[in-house]
């Protein structure tokens, strides 16, 4: 007789994560970022009390994966929309989920002023150094020398400026209570990333102020790389320029 097999479930679908296939490209980190957000909301008991502000770009479809009340914001305006949401419903947990073009380019004013006012919202910022949905154009975070469809010879500092360091910029603002940069390229970094998302969320639940977390992520399709090579690029090229760490903390 065969021995009884004792199974231990190691991987549970969070209650608020939809059980459906992903539309993201193979190797994309949005799936990881979504899961981190879903787990943190779930573990903090916020699922029923959350209003999500989704933005423009690949990540607009966050509402197809995390089941929560959501409003879709125009390009870059998510922090302003979130301000309106939070001012209207102070008792709700409000967060935005934005890419680099959205947050650091067209929506830079909204991002900076929302943080500076100390709006009690949380911002999850996914930085993959490229415009994903529109087909791989240059972003404010594109690395020097990185080739995109609008800087085919590689980003040139003289011509296009240098990649913007948003975690540091946000940390410099008075209303920001927490700002950190993490990465989603390996298990160790993902574990640290979850802690940072958790803390950015606690920033709001504890009434500390504006919470910001930047996730360094891969876009294999627009980087023209395999998912494995893309993960290596995060480690070798992005992290040295965008150092991981906590830039402002409330504890």
């Amino acid at each position, binding site marked *: 007789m065969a021995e009884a097999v004792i199974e231990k479930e190691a991987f549970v679908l969070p209650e608020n994560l939809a059980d459906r296939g992903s539309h993201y490209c193979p190797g994309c980190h949005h799936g990881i970022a979504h899961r981190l957000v879903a787990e943190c909301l779930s573990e903090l008991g916020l699922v029923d009390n*959350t209003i999500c502000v989704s933005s423009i770009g690949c990540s607009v479809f966050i509402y197809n994966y995390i089941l929560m009340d*959501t*409003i*879709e914001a*125009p390009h870059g305006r998510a922090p*302003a929309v979130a301000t309106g949401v939070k001012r209207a419903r102070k008792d709700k*947990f409000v967060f935005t989920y934005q890419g680099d073009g959205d947050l650091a380019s067209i929506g830079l004013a909204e991002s900076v002023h929302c943080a500076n006012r100390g709006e009690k919202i949380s911002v999850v910022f996914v930085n993959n150094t490229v415009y994903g949905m529109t087909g791989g154009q240059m972003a404010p975070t594109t690395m020097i020398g990185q080739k995109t469809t609008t800087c085919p010879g590689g980003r040139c500092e003289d011509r296009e400026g240098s990649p913007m360091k948003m975690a540091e910029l946000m940390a410099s603002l008075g209303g920001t209570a927490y700002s950190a940069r993490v990465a989603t390229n390996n298990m160790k970094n993902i574990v640290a990333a979850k802690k940072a998302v958790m803390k950015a969320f606690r920033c709001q639940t504890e009434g500390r102020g504006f919470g910001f977390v930047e996730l360094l992520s891969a876009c294999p399709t627009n980087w023209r790389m395999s998912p494995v090579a893309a993960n290596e690029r995060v480690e070798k090229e992005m992290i040295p320029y965008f150092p991981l760490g906590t830039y402002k903390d409330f504890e």
Partner: protein
Amino acid sequence: MSAARDGERIFIKGNEAVAHGALAAGCRCYFGYPITPQNDIPELLSSLIPEAGGEFVQAESEVAAANMLLGSAACGVRAFTSSSSPGISLMQEAISYMAGSELPGVIVNMVRGGPGLGDIGPSQGDYFQAVKGGGHGDYRLFVLAPATCQEAYDHMIEAFHLAFKYRNPVMVLGDAILGQMKEPVTAWTPRLGDSLSHDDTEGAEWRLEGSANRPARLLKSLHLEEGALATHNKKLVAKYKEMEQEVRAEECLCEDAELIVAAFGSIGRIVKSTVRHLRDKGHKVGLFRPITLFPFPTARLEAMAVEGKRFLTIEHNTGQMVEDVRLAIRHHADSAFHGCMPGDLPSPDDFVHPILNVLEGK
């Protein structure tokens, strides 16, 4: 200045009437950015709204202000923003999203002269922008055009009611004359249970508030599935058609008039003085003042055209509403046009000869 009491007679500017009217309507959030000639609105609300338990935010731009409005509207809260022409242009992105997402918000435009930076003087140059969409895509705002400070107050109360009734942004279209003139206004608050009042259940079937004990809700304007946008836009068109039941205009001395002068807002009020003056001298003229600019009072104008009346449209621009007047009467008549230039301040006397010229067929 403190919040007006019910029945109180207050001597205030049109801009202040807008602020008091919004408070009486139960508005809880105001977002704005300074621009002349409407600064009295945010200045007054920066103290009155917090006193009433609401939220005031001076945004970093008109772009942000309109998007804050979008966020509050998604929560089913009565919220508004105000600005003047160049600022309203910056708000168009969010207004289009609000129309697409079917969100109820109120936007006040105290129009100044344009195009571009133009002038801080009065104008009706934003008529097209207000009634033909304004932002990208195929949509309409409900547009109310007050001519007096009392109407500015009243229209704010009606605007919030209409915004929630139709889940659509509503624009109150004034101008620098109305914003800066001062006259007595009787304050009033819609009584609970009145059609114009609101209660805690407003928007309860769609507003965002966290998904406890129900499926998650999504407010969006993106429709990528095959046929989804067509279905959505057909629904919007049906809604715009339904709005026609709210159509409203002031008619003054029109019944036996040979010539109908169509004019809206502040200019409508000035033309009214001219029309009365000419009547006193025996000229058969009347004023037709559209109060809802969208939906436009097309049927009433057409009925008057069928009666054989002639038409003149007077506006504070180079010819915008006249297109809607001509559309309304096109099978039976045409409309002459007289425009006064943006930035100028016309008097009733300025319209005597333009009206007499058309009346006498010159």
